């Protein structure tokens, strides 16, 4: 048993940390987030060069990692700088699916993803599906050897900038059946795709995507026809692990900022940190962060276990992160007082990201319910 990072991961972590400290200060980050595109192509290329994308993918497809702890290491560092570049949709979701289930030629694209030249998105959720992974109404029908897709995809992360999107569609089955889902890899400039991009509350970008008679060939199909559900669940599982780790990084920074504020800011002639009430609340915050960290480590360690074990650990982690992130976001603003409410100051942007992570891949209650169901089934 050893909870220390391997040397490789420690080195990656350190170089990433140095890079972000040097190049990705809070003001830079806010400028990037406020720009038209919502992220920096230049920094994206540099991140790719640092190996950040490759670290999240296995050697078979040209990466040099791909395990739970690799994802955790990278994402935690990104969380410390609330990086807005599309690492999650491109490297974790999109590339993860191709690495897992893609054909050889689809896997061949990963080289360009790893080098930062190709941006991906996973167009899965729909306006009605909330956090259900199987409630998909987008239809794909076979016509003259082609597949024709029709449907609408909601809040697709990086949907406006992606070069290619992975679209889930129903090729058989009823509306929320796990069976009958198929994944397609589609160029975003394909005929019939329209995208409405927008900023998100936490400084990122997403899009509503409409598919109208979008025709693609048989080679667009990823994996087995109608059997995409396990692939989707695993992809979302990696996404859950990724955002949990990201939240750990962001929580640590929010906590440290608050700690420093309490130590330096005086009220009624003494540092705020002298007030026992704030002390105890800081301790409770730290304790919940340690719990969230523990749950995330557990989930990372169980990524290769059987489905029930893995998914229970992921739901546990997402629930705990959801609760602790809310606590940290709210408490760190409250303890800062007014300054914690201002756009100019970094803290509230961490708070916003922490809050919005609860809206990705299922919130705390969704995963509480899911954990209970998994736990009762086992």
């Amino acid at each position, binding site marked *: 048993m050893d909870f220390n990072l391997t040397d490789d991961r420690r080195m990656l972590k350190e170089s990433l940390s140095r890079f972000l400290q040097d190049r990705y200060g809070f003001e830079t980050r806010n400028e990037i987030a406020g720009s038209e595109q919502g992220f920096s192509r230049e920094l994206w290329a540099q991140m790719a060069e640092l190996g950040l994308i490759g670290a999240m993918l296995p050697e078979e497809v040209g990466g040099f990692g791909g395990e739970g702890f690799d994802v955790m290491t990278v994402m935690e560092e990104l969380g410390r700088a609330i990086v807005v570049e599309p690492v999650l949709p491109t490297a974790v979701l999109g590339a993860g699916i191709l690495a897992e289930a893609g054909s050889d030629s689809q896997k061949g694209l990963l080289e360009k993803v790893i080098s930062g030249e190709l941006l991906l998105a996973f167009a899965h*959720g729909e*306006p*009605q599906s*909330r*956090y*259900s992974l199987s*409630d998909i109404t987008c239809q794909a029908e076979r016509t003259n050897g082609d597949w024709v897709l029709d449907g609408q995809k*909601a*809040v697709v992360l990086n949907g406006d900038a992606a070069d290619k999107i992975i679209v889930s569609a129903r090729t058989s089955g009823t*509306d*929320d059946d796990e069976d009958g889902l198929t994944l397609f890899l589609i160029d975003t400039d394909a005929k019939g795709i329209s995208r*409405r991009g*927008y*900023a*998100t*509350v*936490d400084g990122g970008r*997403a899009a*509503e995507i409409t598919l109208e008679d979008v025709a693609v060939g048989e080679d667009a199909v990823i994996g087995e026809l109608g059997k995409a559900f396990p692939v989707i669940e695993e992809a979302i599982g990696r996404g859950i692990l990724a955002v949990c780790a990201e939240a750990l990084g962001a929580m640590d920074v929010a906590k440290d900022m608050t700690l420093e504020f309490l130590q330096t*800011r005086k*009220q*009624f002639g003494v540092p705020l940190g002298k*007030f026992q*009430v*704030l002390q105890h609340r800081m301790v409770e915050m730290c304790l919940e962060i340690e719990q969230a960290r523990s749950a995330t480590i557990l989930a990372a360690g169980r990524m290769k276990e059987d489905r029930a074990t893995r998914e229970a650990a992921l739901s546990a982690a997402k629930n705990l992160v959801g609760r602790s992130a*809310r606590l940290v976001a*709210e408490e760190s*603003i*409250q303890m800062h*007082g*007014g300054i*914690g*409410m*201002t*756009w*100019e100051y970094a803290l*509230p*942007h961490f*708070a*916003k990201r922490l*809050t*919005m992570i*609860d*809206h*990705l891949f299922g*919130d705390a*209650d969704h995963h*509480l*319910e899911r954990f209970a169901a998994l736990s009762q089934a086992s």
Partner: protein
Amino acid sequence: MDMNFTPEEIAFRDEVRGFLKDKLPEALAAKVKGGKRLLKGDYELWHTRLNERGWLAWHWPVDHGGTGWTPIEKHIFEEECVAAGAPRVVPFGLNMLGPVLIKFGSDEQRAHYLPRILNGDDWWCQGYSEPGSGSDLASLKTKAVRDGDHYLVNGQKTWTTLGHFADWIFCLVRTDSDCKPQQGISFLLIDMKTPGITVRPIVTLDGEHEVNEVFFEDVRVPVGNLVGEENKGWTYAKYLLTYERTGIAGVAFAKNGLAHLKQVAARQMKGRKPLAQDPLFASRVAQVEIDLMAMETFNLRTVSAAQHGGVPGVESSMLKIKGTEIRQEITDLLRRALGPYAAPFVPEGLDEGYNEPPIGPDYANPVASQYFNMRKVSIYGGSNEIQKNIVAKMMLGL
């Protein structure tokens, strides 16, 4: 025990409702309830309508234009206005400066400023908080030095709500530094057009501009603009802070929010059924509804005690704490109700005249921003921590 309004009170309530029905434009009420941005003119319109009816300065003494309402009537009026979606009356001139001038101002000041407040001629803002002062208001540093028949003011105020609309600011300034912080403070009225004043917007975490920083650099203020005595400003400030706290629980705001939450939960789907029917979500909504029902009665007990001559003590602080907790919980549940559609950030969609179709359900756009914005209610007006200190002091007497 009698938990009902008297027939007279019910008649009064109906009168208020009738007035709101007649005089509050539907489009304006919809804007308020829909969380859209209000323009300066929206506030001014409602101010005027109230003044025309003689209901603007309801908390002023009758001989200065007040209504003479009982505590219960005041309560009814406030609740009905919020329930109907009336814009808030900007409180700085009317609820804050007005009472101070009435009690501590000179005859000249009263004669000059009070009618202008009622008419809406002057838009006032408040210069209390300073960077670094937080809940420790008395630590303020902005200095006013006597120079002939003027004060020379230097310093900085912050969190100045709607200061960018204001014609005048009332300020606490330090006129003596060689004494306890609470002494040596004076209360000055300053024309915002005076040279040396700069207003800088503060953008809050939700991307909105409502508050400002105000800088003073060698600003010359006539000594006639001093309210009351020099160095006695703290007394006036404290008077103002404790004046009229009946609405502090925000019951009507919370009720509007809860009703909206329940509508949203009925429309949001989860597993092809309305979210409102999900046992866990329903239990969270029920919990806050129960807390709110109880607080409404708690609030009525306080109002009724005032009606019978009681003076609210720790109750105001307790209602502030519980009221903000409930309002924050409601916006949190609203945020959670939306699922993935809490994420889009389309601030231009909050402006009148925005014509694009909404992203996701039409109620989604303001929700996340309101959740973050609502963080302020447990911070300002004496943070909840300060309120707990106050209650503890009264209770434990240590």
